[in-house]
């Protein structure tokens, strides 16, 4: 029996090591959230699972009302999950105390900034809550806050509040930062400032979790995209992964006039011809199965034989936007 135990020991050790694996700064496992309403319980989240790592931007993407902000609130520990497990830096954030809070920075969607004080005073105050805060002068320089540092927050524009909110989230030099719609309402210059700062945080190993409904932002910033729709994770992966798979064939061409039945029937059999369902123009066709130059040659040979001259054609690398619309298509149909 004891010999058996000795044999197992290395494995037990490995299992133990795996359990204590903190490479995930944040993990949500099968998180549900429902609220009582007059007509029974309303399910906001129906089983959300994802992880976020250090030095990466994880973007929660989804249409309005999908449950992004609720997911974020639960991950931050502001809100409580109805069921499921949440681990932020290895602990349950809903029960965590000041120790965890000192390592996590939060920027709420509607700011949560006190209206009567100036940005400078707020940052000075927040600084006193930490032992090793960031230099707020440098932070104000960086986020271009200096010009309005002594103005009460109620007099600031949306974009100015947004930048101040970001500064507030970073005062404590956090390991994990939550940014709810960080680019909402920003002009191009401010956007650039915020995006560069996010890149910089990534470079020093901060784990960044942000929500956005702007695909552009996710495409530009995210290492890992979690697509949330109707309280569920619809798809997750890197931008490349999400855009290289999917329902839409990557080759399309547009013809001048309707293809005849004969032309359609004579199409190379190893390729699949179909109308592009995603555009209203019935003259756009999709071709599935083009993977080699030979496939391409078979296609153009067919065009030569039937005298089909396309108006435009091309291999499309999908954007995140295509994936998004595919996955949400039946909502907008």
């Amino acid at each position, binding site marked *: 029996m004891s010999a058996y135990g000795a044999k197992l020991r290395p494995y037990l050790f490995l299992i133990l090591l795996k359990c204590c694996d903190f490479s995930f700064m944040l993990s949500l496992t099968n998180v549900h959230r429902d609220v009582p309403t007059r007509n029974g319980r309303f399910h906001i989240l129906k089983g959300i699972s994802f992880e976020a790592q250090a030095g990466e931007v994880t973007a929660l993407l989804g249409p309005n009302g999908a449950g992004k902000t609720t997911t974020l609130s639960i991950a931050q520990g502001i809100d409580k999950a109805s069921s499921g497990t949440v681990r932020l830096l290895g602990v349950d954030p809903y029960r965590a105390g000041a120790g965890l809070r000192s390592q996590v920075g939060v920027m*709420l969607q509607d700011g949560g900034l006190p209206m009567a004080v100036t940005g400078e005073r707020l940052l000075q105050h927040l600084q006193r809550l930490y032992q090793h805060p960031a230099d707020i002068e440098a932070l104000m320089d960086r986020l271009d806050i200096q010009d309005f540092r002594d103005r009460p927050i109620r007099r600031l524009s949306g974009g100015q509040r947004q930048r101040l909110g970001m500064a507030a989230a970073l005062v404590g030099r956090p390991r994990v930062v939550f940014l709810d719609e960080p680019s909402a309402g920003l002009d191009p210059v401010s956007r650039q400032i915020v995006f560069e700062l996010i890149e910089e945080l990534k470079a020093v190993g901060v784990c960044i979790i942000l929500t956005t409904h702007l695909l552009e932002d996710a495409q530009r910033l995210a290492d890992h995209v979690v697509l949330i729709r109707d309280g569920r994770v619809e798809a997750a992966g890197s931008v490349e992964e999400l855009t290289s798979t999917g329902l839409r064939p990557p080759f399309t061409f547009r013809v001048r006039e309707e293809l005849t039945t004969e032309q359609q029937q004579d199409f190379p059999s190893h390729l699949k011809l179909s109308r592009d369902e995603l555009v209203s123009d019935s003259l756009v066709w999709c071709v599935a199965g083009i993977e080699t130059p030979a496939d391409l040659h078979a296609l153009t040979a067919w065009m030569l034989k039937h005298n089909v001259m396309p108006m435009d054609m091309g291999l499309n690398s999908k954007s995140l936007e295509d994936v998004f619309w595919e996955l949400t298509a039946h909502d907008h149909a």
Partner: protein
Amino acid sequence: MTTLDLAPVNKPHSASLVSKVLAQGRYETRVTVTNGEQLLVSIILPLLALAGLYFTDLFDSPGGPSTIDIATPGILALSVLSSGLTGQGIATGFDRRYGVLQYLATTPLGPVGLLLGKAVAVLMVQVTQLVVIGGVALLLGWSPAVSGLGFALLFVALGALAFTALGLLIAGTVRAEATLAITNISWVILGALGGVVFPIAEFAGSVFINYLPSAALGNGLRAALVEGNFDAVSCVILAVWTVVLSLGTIRWFKWR
């Protein structure tokens, strides 16, 4: 220009509870004294009430204590109501509405730090009120019973706790606009009819009013400062209210 170092601090590094509470108290005090509305309810309105009572000779009775001697303890009680109930109630109500409480709960300050910080701020404002209102009253000829000063401070502290708890209870359970309305109306009603400024004997059938926290505070302060006595009954009533209102706040306060 200093360089920005955002390299994460890879260990818990919250400031100690004491420094956080002091920081929050300092911050809240500053917000209060630079806010015109707060200044109005905490200092100006009680001063106006004091002046009003002084010039109308409402409490004059031949052979009894002077108007200013009866009025001042009531006005001090009124100012406790102002800063605790109205001031903190309204400020907290709007902070809650704008998500400030939710935001602060995500910082190392935490709920406990926030509440203690607010208590520190109320105390600071109260000290200011005592100095300003007491000072003006002394100029108008107020001569408090020196032996009752300690009792008076006890009642002020208890009252501050009770009415801050009531303010937070209202702010933490109803919408900000409703908080604004309720706390302002309660200030007027409790202030005028709740035994704060006017001794209960002025009203007929005032048995119930004596059990209100406002009357307990007013009666306690008058007993202490007019006669130099300790009003034990009022003290117990106020203490019970303090406990009940604090428990209610802890039980029902919603951060958002």
